[in-house]
């Protein structure tokens, strides 16, 4: 059968040397004609029809990054020429991962398979290598927890490492989930406890990856576990150490709106349910053992060892899951909203902790109160449980998201959690006015649009127009914005401003990407192998991505992706064949395999 190959390219294929690929293609058996139609072509049906007739082509291969886009034109041309329209085959570079160092060979292999009408994934399965049954999961947020439980429940051992003192991640900080307004802790904490007690899960908190070697199926990972200074097994969380600790530090778990001690438990439901010491703030550790140390004396179980040192653990694992999550954009970079200048301008996470029943005000939404700090002899603004509730609250969307100066991308969760905030404010404070300033309302998930409608019906003033700035006028905060739908330019007087701050990759992303040689997309998130086809794989065999670290997504999507990762890992464990690195199969092998399949 005569085959014709047509290249229909996009700008993305600029790193590929098309001339060289075309030369290779022309030498393939049965290939009669190779045409490069250039970048973003408009294929002319008549012309292709002529080519098909003139060369008596029985099969047409459309090669490029998104060849499916051009398929209809070729199918029509094929039918005009009286050929079999099923023989219009696609050779998609993007879909089959022709990128990176091996891009050229891979692109050639993709075309070779297409000319033989062999599905590429059939010919290009890396030979299985024995897989170690253990899985390493990096990151103990909801994604890591979900993957760990799925795999462990299937009876396979899991190492879960988490850099802070407890698992739970950001979800543990949330009050409610959207759009169902379920209590986040009610979903998360049973899972956390399950992880803590599971026979197949070994948990390493305060740990980071220090090094990685080996091949897919048999990775050697070195973990650096920082000293916790408290023996997890014997600590009963009696809180006596915290009571005597003299050092006060802003709580990470409370997003900085409350204080914790240098020896602390992040939150009462922490897993492992044990205290830990912040070595950067502990007087004893900072003074080299000369001062303080009262907690160790006070502890009834004698489980505090302030002289503990960091240590390394070596693990042998078959598969690795990256689930390291995200963090908020540094909002002090965006000065127009007065964050840091006016006390009652909050980030979304701060508000989340304020409204949380386990938070510093017991879930009451109040304004900050002025308090005299005797130590620094300065007034400071703090949240007190008996503070005054705000009469009006402005929630500003897209702070640092969809903005070319900060994050060009949409953070995807802000619209919905902002609506949730509006509901929580309305629920907790009677007669409050809530403004939502949005650019475009992205209520894309199941039940989300209905949720947005519900919030509107509850009386929240949803204003189309991204407000430009927050100023202070005689002690009254003023949000200046354009109400586009009502055609008004107005100054809104508010007592509290909540900024829906954009999300950025967690700071560990760079380091891990370098260590594991995984590429990142231009926004800095981990790159998946194929956004549509294999959204959980990376170009490295046996390394998967789950949750936010692959790109912003909400909790349902994160959980779904984490479960999908578990499915991939369990497949590799049951088939006893791990997926090798994409680059591990040479071109000749794919060609040979494709030929085999073709003759069968």
């Amino acid at each position, binding site marked *: 059968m005569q085959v014709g190959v047509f290249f229909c390219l996009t700008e993305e294929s600029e790193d590929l040397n098309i001339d060289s690929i075309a030369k290779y293609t022309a030498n393939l058996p049965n290939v009669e004609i190779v045409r490069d139609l250039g970048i973003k072509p408009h294929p002319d049906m008549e012309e292709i029809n002529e080519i098909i007739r003139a060369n008596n082509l029985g099969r047409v291969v459309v090669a490029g990054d998104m060849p499916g886009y051009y398929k209809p034109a070729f199918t029509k041309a094929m039918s005009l020429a009286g050929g079999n329209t099923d023989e219009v085959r696609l050779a998609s570079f993007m879909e089959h991962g022709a990128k990176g160092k091996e891009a050229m060979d891979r692109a050639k292999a993709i075309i070779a398979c297409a000319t033989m009408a062999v599905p590429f994934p059939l010919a290009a399965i890396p030979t299985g290598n024995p897989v170690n049954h253990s899985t390493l999961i990096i990151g103990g947020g909801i994604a890591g927890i979900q993957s760990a439980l799925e795999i462990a429940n299937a009876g396979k051992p899991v190492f879960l490492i988490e850099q802070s003192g407890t698992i739970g991640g950001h979800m543990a900080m949330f009050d409610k989930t959207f759009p169902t307004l379920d209590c986040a802790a009610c979903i998360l904490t049973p899972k956390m406890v399950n992880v803590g007690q599971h026979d197949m899960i070994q948990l390493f908190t305060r740990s980071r990856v220090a090094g990685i070697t080996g091949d897919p199926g048999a990775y050697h990972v070195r973990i650096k576990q920082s000293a916790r200074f408290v023996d997890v097994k014997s600590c009963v969380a009696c809180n006596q150490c915290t009571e005597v600790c003299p050092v006060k530090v802003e709580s990470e778990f409370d997003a900085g709106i409350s204080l914790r001690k240098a020896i602390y438990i992040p939150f009462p439901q922490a897993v492992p349910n044990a205290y830990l010491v912040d070595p950067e703030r502990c007087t004893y550790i900072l003074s080299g053992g000369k001062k303080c140390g009262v907690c160790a004396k006070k502890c009834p179980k004698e489980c505090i060892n302030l002289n503990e040192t960091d240590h390394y653990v070596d693990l042998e694992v078959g598969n690795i899951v990256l689930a390291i999550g995200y963090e908020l954009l540094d909002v002090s970079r965006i000065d127009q909203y007065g964050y840091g200048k006016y006390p009652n301008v909050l980030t979304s996470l701060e508000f989340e902790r304020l409204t949380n029943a386990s938070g510093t005000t017991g879930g009451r939404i109040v304004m900050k109160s002025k308090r005299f700090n005797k130590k620094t002899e300065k007034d400071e603004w703090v949240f007190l449980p008996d503070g005054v509730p705000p009469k009006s609250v402005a929630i500003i969307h897209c702070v640092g998201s969809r903005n*070319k100066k900060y994050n060009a991308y949409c953070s995807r969760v802000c619209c919905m959690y902002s609506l949730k905030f509006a509901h929580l404010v309305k629920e907790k404070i009677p007669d409050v006015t809530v403004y939502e300033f949005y650019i475009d309302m992205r209520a894309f998930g199941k039940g989300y649009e209905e949720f947005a409608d519900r919030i509107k019906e509850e009386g929240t003033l949803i204003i189309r*127009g*991204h407000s*430009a700035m927050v100023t202070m006028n005689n002690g009254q905060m003023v949000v200046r914005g*354009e109400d586009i739908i009502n055609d*008004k330019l107005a100054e809104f007087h508010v007592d509290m401003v909540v900024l829906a701050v954009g999300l950025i990759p967690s700071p560990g992303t760079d380091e891990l990407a370098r260590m594991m040689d995984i590429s990142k997309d231009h926004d800095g998130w981990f790159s998946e192998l194929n956004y549509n086809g294999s959204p959980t794989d990376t170009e490295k065999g046996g390394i998967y991505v789950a949750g936010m670290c692959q790109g912003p997504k909400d909790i349902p999507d994160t959980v779904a992706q984490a479960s999908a990762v578990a499915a991939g890992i369990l497949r590799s464990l049951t088939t006893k064949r791990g997926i090798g690195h994409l680059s591990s199969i040479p071109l000749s092998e794919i060609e040979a395999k494709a030929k085999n399949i073709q003759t069968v």
Partner: protein
Amino acid sequence: MAIRVNPGFINDLNRFGKENIELCYQCGDCSAVCPHSDEFYKFPRKPIRLLQMGLEKKVETTLEPWLCYYCGDCSDLCPRDANPGDTMMILRRYLTSVYDWTGLSRKFYTSHWWEIGAVFVIGILIALLFSAFNPHGIVTTLTPDGGVKINEMFPVETVNIGAHIMLISIASFLIANIIRMWYLTLLKDRSVRIPFTLYFRKLYQLFVHFLTQKQFIKCKDRSYWIFHLLLMSAYVLMFVLIVGNLRWFQTDRIYSWYQPQRLLGYYSTLGLLAGLAFFSWGRIRKIGQKFKFSHLSDWIFIILLFLTTTSGILLHFFRLSGMPVASYYTYIIHMAVLVPMLCVEVPFSKWSHLAYRPFAIYFAEIKKSALPARKKNDA
């Protein structure tokens, strides 16, 4: 009445200066941050929306672009880097071409050749005119003060006639265009009915804004206002002195330095130089948003004004120090730059804004005062 959409409008507008108008996603940040935007005139977002939708006829009736002083706050804040400030500037160029019934303005703004060509053709014609029609040629004898007899080379009476012809033609073009502006922005807008007396009650606005340009005060950076005012006052003063009072200004007598004739001239020269230095330095170094993008018309004006000013200074110097040949040629060069600058820039290009801007504020005030009346009637 249905509003006609012109899908090619943005492409047409791009000929007045390239800006990515389609980038805008209508968040309204620009309107909210703009110190000039208010409850009645919300911009730049709204006019940009009109552009995006291709509502050409509606854009023609907007006054908003003239209310913008291009401080650049909107462009600084714009999350899409869509440069709303420059879009307003482009709209001002476009509106100038809409108001101009001759169509020359459009040619000058959209074609480099037309703009540069017009300046050169007028310049050469003027140079030829002055070299051909002077009765005595180069007069080498000096006045008793030791100055050059400039009035014997170029008799002030003759030049004055030319100056008045130029003045009248520039003024009539400009007035015709302002009438057209009034027709488009006030008369055509059926949503407001403007009581006739309002035109008189608001007339003072025209002079206040022309003379003080106090709207600039609303912008954060006041230096722009100071230099703009300096340049404008110097320019207008010079215009009045030269074109209006040539008899008094072009003399062979050498006055003492403290005489008003010389003092006013020096003030103008200094004002022009200071303004020119500020604007050209800003445009060369692209300081801030307002100087980030320079259109050919922006540069042509700076260059012509610079040449006019320097040749004027040289002429003054040559005349006082009794250098007839140098004075003769400098005079011709001075005229060959000055006349095209006035004829091209004032009625048809960049400097027409000296008339359009105060008139736009005047019209805007009228419209604003008329609007509540309409609302009351509706109620």
